[in-house]
């Protein structure tokens, strides 16, 4: 019964699948996300990453704070491509939406949030 618990509702991933990953030797939320898709759906892991962190914390006997969090990636909410395209066109009047010829945006200095 306990193992039929859904951990990631967006991608329909059960606790059983998460435990299997841990048994297979995966150690981080990021790895589990990559192999199961947990946290890749529309809500981007808002609930499931804490639940997965709990499982990792329990399995590897480390405190929750020490479980490596996965990166929160933009956008914060799903947003339509049409709206984004219009925003670009508004700011680039008269330009063609062609990326090959485009001027490179200045790289956001510093960066390197690897």
């Amino acid at each position, binding site marked *: 019964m306990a193992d039929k618990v859904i951990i990631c509702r967006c991608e329909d991933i059960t606790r059983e699948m998460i435990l299997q990953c841990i048994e297979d030797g995966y150690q981080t939320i990021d790895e589990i996300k990559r192999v199961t898709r947990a946290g890749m759906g529309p809500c*981007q892991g808002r609930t499931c990453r804490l639940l997965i962190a709990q499982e990792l914390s329990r399995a590897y006997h480390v405190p929750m704070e020490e479980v490596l969090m996965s990166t929160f990636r933009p*956008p914060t909410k799903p947003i*339509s491509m049409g709206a*984004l*395209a219009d925003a670009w066109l508004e700011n680039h009047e008269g330009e063609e939406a062609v*990326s*090959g010829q485009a001027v*490179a945006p200045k790289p956001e200095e510093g960066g390197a949030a690897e």
Partner: protein
Amino acid sequence: MKKGYDVVVIGGGIVGCATAFELAKRGVKDILLIEKRFLTAGATGRCGAGIRQQWGSELNASIALESTNILENLEEYTGYPHSVELHQGGYLLVAYTDKEWDQFQKNLEVQHRLGIDSYALTPEEMKKKVPYLNLDGVKGGTFNQKDGHANPFHCTQAYAYGARKMGVDIETFCEATGFRMKNGAIAGVETTKGYIEAKTVINCANTRAPELAKMVGEDIPVISERHQALVTEPVAPLIDCMVMAFSRSYYVQQTPHGSFVMGIGPKETPSHNFKSSWQFLEHNCAVMCEALPILRNLRVVRQWAGQYDMSPDANPVIDEAAECKNFYSVCGFSGHGFMVSPRVAIMVANYLTGQEDTLDIHRFSKKRFETGELLLEPAVV
């Protein structure tokens, strides 16, 4: 992890994992792979995972062809119990200029010589394949059914799985920080988990490979360039093939899961920048909605950034360090390393175990930038 190994591979991306696997397969017993984070933490886990045989140079086309043959059976090849989700829905390459269209004809000749089943399409025929394609400015296209994509996480895990089965040790969260040499040859690797003796080191650290090579006195002309991608929510199947254009520098594909993965490639100043930008988000959507207006309705759920390890001729640099014997670097894949890694790993493993190969590894040496024998490729993003 032991005190010392015959071979230490640095980097847990597809290149490092495939190389470790191929070496073990050739009977090399004592191999360690170290990865500073987790497997696929680098470019491999951030890539579009497209595989195509539609190249313009015979070298790239044949490496991609042979790599595809391996990916077609990677589960069996490595014993991996999951699917690597290979989907061969084809690549539709779109020409928007006459020059590009002429080049496509030449590329087809090269591909046909190798037995690749690619063919040309008129704009009307393209519309039949991808009804949502905006034909404005389209001169024509080429298609090859064997092109497609695979899941980069599972492909890498498959190689790692097979490697472990043959006794390869894999140590994650272990970063190479320095090297020790003895009599002009590599002696060992300093890591965040201590010193490891090594008779041979294979540097597969992608964009970080040049700085590691530098530690043994080797200069590799490879730079790091940020490229971004995004993914939409999953929807019912709309497009079976990858759609890609060099002149407009975009690619888009629908994954078996239903989401669309896409990216555009404006040139940027070299950096190790891993941040996503809103400029990319908007610009990408403008370019893509122009090419495939139906995409307007889809919602973006996630974007990310990764690096291309760019070499001067956009092809890999594979070399032994001049001042440090048995230290090899395998990098410079310039944005298409995923699809060629299976065959490149075989070539490297054959070379290191003294086996014959139809490919001459020396062609990938950095000497080519002095002699001018560049590996020129007309069909790159």
